[in-house]
């Protein structure tokens, strides 16, 4: 925390001494809002109590609704809410002494409150009013129970999905970077490669499943290849466009500095294309999630996609939703990691482009 604050002030010093007329105008409105060291930053009680209050209300509603249900069914759900209340009170007592935590809570409390209220609404609509038909729409308590009861299998499925996803994604990214760099840099390769890319690329990878099942020795292998294919297209496309759109003046400058071809490709064109490459990596990641789940529910006998279709086969919709929750957490974690990597790599863009 301290470190980053020092970096910030260092960066600011640079800007101020160099362009005194411009930077402060931009920077000033930002600093008081985001600075965790603002002495006047105390949280309002409304913000602090929103989470425990909401949890308390939702829990009360739940008890009222679930009187008719067997107690085992709802025990863990109630426990979860008690934990929410407990943790929020712990944070509440800690926050006066920890500015970073206060800053985080100011930002996150409304979101958590909303999420808790949404859980309550779900509970009311399903278990309470029974507006939605069972077994397709179980209440949150039932889903939580499935999640806890089936945790070993879910964890195992997540692990298999992760392995498959990573192997396919890595393969696709490597292939995509290589073909993208070649197509972007060399005109002959572009001439022959671009038509292939334009014709084959837009076919959804999942459309190859029938062929993949016939050709490949194992389902896992063909699934990895399909994911790689799904990733390969956007990565190739955006790498190629990034490379071929490298500002000519950067290349000119590099050549007058004595740069050879390797320097021009690896130290000028590729760094200049990195923002574009990352867009390709994000698009490829989205495509890889889709392909992963489809491949797992069709051919592969493991993973979260397989789990969902298996649970659906037994009409255990609580497990289906449990797997969906795991998937949401799993995929968004991977997405967040990629964002972190991008922020690291593109640190030089900080303040230039916001996306």
């Amino acid at each position, binding site marked *: 925390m301290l470190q980053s604050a020092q970096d910030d002030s260092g*960066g600011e010093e*640079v*800007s101020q001494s*160099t*362009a005194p007329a411009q930077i402060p105008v931009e920077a000033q409105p930002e600093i008081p809002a985001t600075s965790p060291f603002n002495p006047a930053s105390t949280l309002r009680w409304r913000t602090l109590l929103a989470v425990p209050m909401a949890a308390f209300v939702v829990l009360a509603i739940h008890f009222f609704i679930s009187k008719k249900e067997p107690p085992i069914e709802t025990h863990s759900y109630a426990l979860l809410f008690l934990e929410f209340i407990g943790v929020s009170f712990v944070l509440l007592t800690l926050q006066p002494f920890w500015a970073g935590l206060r800053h985080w809570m100011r930002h996150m409390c409304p979101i958590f409150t909303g999420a808790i209220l949404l859980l309550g609404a779900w509970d009311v609509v399903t278990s309470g009013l029974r507006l939605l038909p069972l077994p397709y729409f179980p209440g949150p308590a039932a889903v939580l129970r499935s999640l806890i009861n089936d945790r070993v299998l879910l964890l195992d499925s997540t692990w298999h999905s992760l392995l498959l996803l990573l192997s396919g994604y890595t393969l696709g990214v490597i292939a995509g970077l290589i073909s993208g760099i070649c197509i972007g840099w060399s005109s002959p390769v572009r001439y022959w490669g671009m038509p292939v890319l334009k014709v084959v690329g837009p076919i959804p990878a999942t459309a190859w499943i029938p062929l993949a099942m016939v050709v490949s020795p194992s389902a896992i292998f063909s699934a990895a290849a399909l994911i790689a294919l799904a990733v390969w297209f956007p990565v190739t496309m955006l790498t190629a466009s990034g490379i071929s759109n490298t*500002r000519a*003046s*950067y290349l*000119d*400058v*590099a*050549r*007058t*500095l*004595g*740069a*050879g071809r390797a*320097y021009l490709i690896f*130290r*000028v064109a590729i*760094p*200049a294309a*990195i923002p574009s490459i990352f867009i390709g990596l994000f698009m490829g990641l989205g495509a890889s999630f889709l392909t992963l789940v489809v491949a797992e529910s069709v051919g592969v006998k493991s993973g979260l996609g397989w789990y969902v279709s298996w649970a659906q086969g037994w009409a255990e919709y609580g497990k289906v939703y449990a797997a969906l929750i795991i998937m949401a957490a799993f995929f968004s974690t991977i997405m967040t990691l990629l964002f972190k990597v991008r922020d690291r790599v593109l*640190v*030089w*863009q*900080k*303040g*230039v482009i916001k996306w």
Partner: protein
Amino acid sequence: MVAMAETEASSVRLREVSKTFPAPDDPSTRRLVLDAISLSLAPGELVAVVGPSGCGKSTLLRLVAGLDYPDSGELLIGSVPITCPSAERGLVFQDPNLFPWLTVRRNIQAGLVARGLLREKRHEVEDLMRLVGLEVFANAYPHHLSGGMAQRVALARALINHPTVLLLDEPLGALDAFTRMRMQDEVLHLWQARRTTILLVTHDIDEAIYMSDRIVIMTQRPGKIERTISITLDRPRDRSDAEFLRLRGDILEFLHFAGGATAEQRT
């Protein structure tokens, strides 16, 4: 050999250099941009090229840099024809064109990295950063820098290779008046310290008179050398000196006259 490197290798000679580009309105025809330009720079000479925009000044510089090829004519460094860009001819554009993904230090090092000399010459990077007053910003990224600082980095990046010829394409054009004057002195200081041959393209007549040994005035469509003026004023020069002002008036009048003449021809 060494003697030749000092004298010959830093002279620049252009003989009857012409260059055409596809016409923007009709790509099937070609427009003459440079018409039989002949120009020699003695080693260590600072020559300024002035002229209206579109007279091919920048094209001329790109040809000398080796980034473009003439349609006819000959370009020589010493006695060697120019065929491709070389680290011996440093080029600084109006836009600093710093690599935004590299810090100031790494931008300045780029030439050494490109030529695989970083290990043995790393100390020169620090020297050069001190010379242009940028030690403090060594680890800053280009977007943190003001225009003047960025241009100093661009200059340092070109100088790291110890070019025998420095090509400056309106390097100070985008700077405010005060920064520009200070930078003019800095460039002159570097020039005197290193005795590089400098070809400076500028649209600022004061800058040309203040800095150069000789001013080449070009006219446009097609770009031609109309006049060459030797500046014999003592250095450091005084911008309010009577002779300075007289030269300035002369050149302005000439450029106006030339501009008027082409305008008449067109109508």
